[in-house]
């Protein structure tokens, strides 16, 4: 659609409505928390952020996000490949299942993990503790951020016609070489975007890791769980500071996402 200039009262009113709505809904709360966090000065915020508990929580958040990102990138790519290039009975169902994490309530995810790996669980482990420990939290994080890589790559893979791969095969390249030299260079953009989304989603996760990990201070506490605890412990500065930190991190990720979204368009000559 071509863009038009704003002319006449109606478009202006509508635009105003849209912007005011966005401002009230999104910007106002953000402004509120920033001002509250820094109400006592920057020093207080920094001190709050440098507490050992906070640092441990952030460490946990990052490790989980990184782990989930790596796992989901690898497995998600394979999954996308299978969904786009292969045909098998039940493919539609499998495809729909990829969206499942989207509608699962996080608490249910955590709960399922406890049912599976808790002490009386279905797969109660004997050697390594999974539930109420970081493995369950990792599993939870992988679950909630599962669809992103797959869903980002799928359309790109589909667009990248099978013919280019066929061409590579006839030219003598095996599957791995073809994947490496023909497919990846053309999907890396979508792949990267999916990875960033995965990371962002993992950082923001709360319910699933809280339940699965048991939210034990310093051991199974992520940054978000820390904020929750801080709210309950009447530690507003702590809560707000970490929130702002998380917010800044999120916005940083957002900027990266936006930059990636403006992808160079391949003019497909076919």
């Amino acid at each position, binding site marked *: 659609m071509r863009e038009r200039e704003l002319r006449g009262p109606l478009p202006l009113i509508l635009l105003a409505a849209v912007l005011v709505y966005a401002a009230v809904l999104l910007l106002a709360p953000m402004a509120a928390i920033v001002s509250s966090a820094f109400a006592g000065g920057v020093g207080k915020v920094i001190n709050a952020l440098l507490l050992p508990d906070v640092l441990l929580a952030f460490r946990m958040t990052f490790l989980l996000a990184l782990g989930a990102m790596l796992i989901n990138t690898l497995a998600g790519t394979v999954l996308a490949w299978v969904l786009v290039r292969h045909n098998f009975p039940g493919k539609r169902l499998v495809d729909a299942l990829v969206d499942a994490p989207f509608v699962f309530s996080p608490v249910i995810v955590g709960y399922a993990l406890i049912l599976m790996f808790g002490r009386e669980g279905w797969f109660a482990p004997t050697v390594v503790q999974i539930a109420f420990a970081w493995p369950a939290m990792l599993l939870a994080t992988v679950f909630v951020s599962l669809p992103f890589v797959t869903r980002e790559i799928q359309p790109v893979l589909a667009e990248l*016609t099978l*013919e*280019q791969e*066929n*061409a*590579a*095969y*006839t*030219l*003598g*390249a*095996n599957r791995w*070489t073809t994947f490496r*030299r*023909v497919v990846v*260079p*053309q999907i890396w953009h979508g792949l990267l975007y999916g990875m960033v989304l995965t990371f962002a989603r993992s950082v923001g996760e709360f319910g699933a890791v809280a339940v699965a990990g048991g939210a034990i201070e310093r051991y199974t506490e992520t940054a978000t769980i820390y904020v929750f605890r801080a709210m309950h412990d009447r530690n507003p500065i702590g809560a707000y500071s970490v929130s702002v930190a998380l917010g800044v991190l999120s916005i940083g990720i957002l900027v990266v996402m936006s930059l990636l979204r403006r992808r160079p368009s*391949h*003019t*497909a*000559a*076919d």
Partner: protein
Amino acid sequence: MSILLENVTKYYERQAVVKDLSLEIESGEFFVLLGASGSGKSTLLRLIAGLIPLDKGRIWLHGRDVTTLPPQQRNTGFVFQNYSLFQHMTVAQNIEFGLDVRRVSRQARRQRVAELLRLIDLEGYEHRMPSQLSGGQQQRVALARALAYQPEVLLLDEPFGALDARIRVQLRQNLRDIQKRLQITTILVTHDQEEAFELADRIGVIDAGELLEVGEPSALYRRPKNRFTATFLGNANLLRGQRNGSKVYLEQPSEEVTLAAPPNTEHLSGQPVDIFSRPEEVEIALSRHELRGQLIGQAIVQEMTFAGPLEKVCVQLQSDRDRNKSSDLIIQVLLSPDEARTLGLARGKQVWVGLKDYHLLHAAV
């Protein structure tokens, strides 16, 4: 011989897309597989390339049984309909890909790329991206890419389908020249019979997965063995008749009309046949004795269409049985504008029709 297909069969969802097809192609030959959409021609080409596995039969390329080999190991060059160039690589990188995979040294690759760019007349284009090229240029690059590592066989799947008419003609000539120069065994798949005539040493007509006829273009055009071939390769006039002894007795327009049986049609003796003639072999005259060819009967001019260097005329034969008979008796004629003028042809004019040349086909049931 270069390519041998033995009883090749391919099923898709329980239907045979390629049915028990056998074919031999000589080394250095330019073979065109001609058929309509859905006839199985593209599938057959892909079976030869190894992009699809076959269900029954065997394929031999240059004496090697490649039936179970993946495309990587068949050493064919494949040109796709929509070029399928690697969008993220330059022209040079595209062309040298096959060499790169075969671990050819960079020096040798560069040389070969230069050679090929000269061959396809795109010198200086090494560093362009596919998106910067026109369709015709992309297709040429695709061809160069397929030829870079000197494959034994060149396969082209409707390579000019996506291009303008004028570019198509140009590229066709280029392809012919290149093929003649390199003497590489080539199979081209198309539905365009003009293209087939221009390029082929031999044409194979394929329909519904079956190879109906194989032969040189002029032979297939003039003396097709098969009704499908006859109608597919150009306009065909078909009249029903019966061959007996040394004569052919027409059923229409009049059972009194007989023609001499053409040579080499003894096998059709005693059977219903279609008398087949091309529009350009039909003769029109104003009186009976002006006809030099074999007389068919009288007709009324139905329609005249200007077609550039020729005049297309449709006449309806008058049946002696039923003056108002159906359009089965419409004959298409191709005349030079001069002839049409001399005869003073116009709609409704009554003329005499004869055949200068004709052939017999086994009648369709």
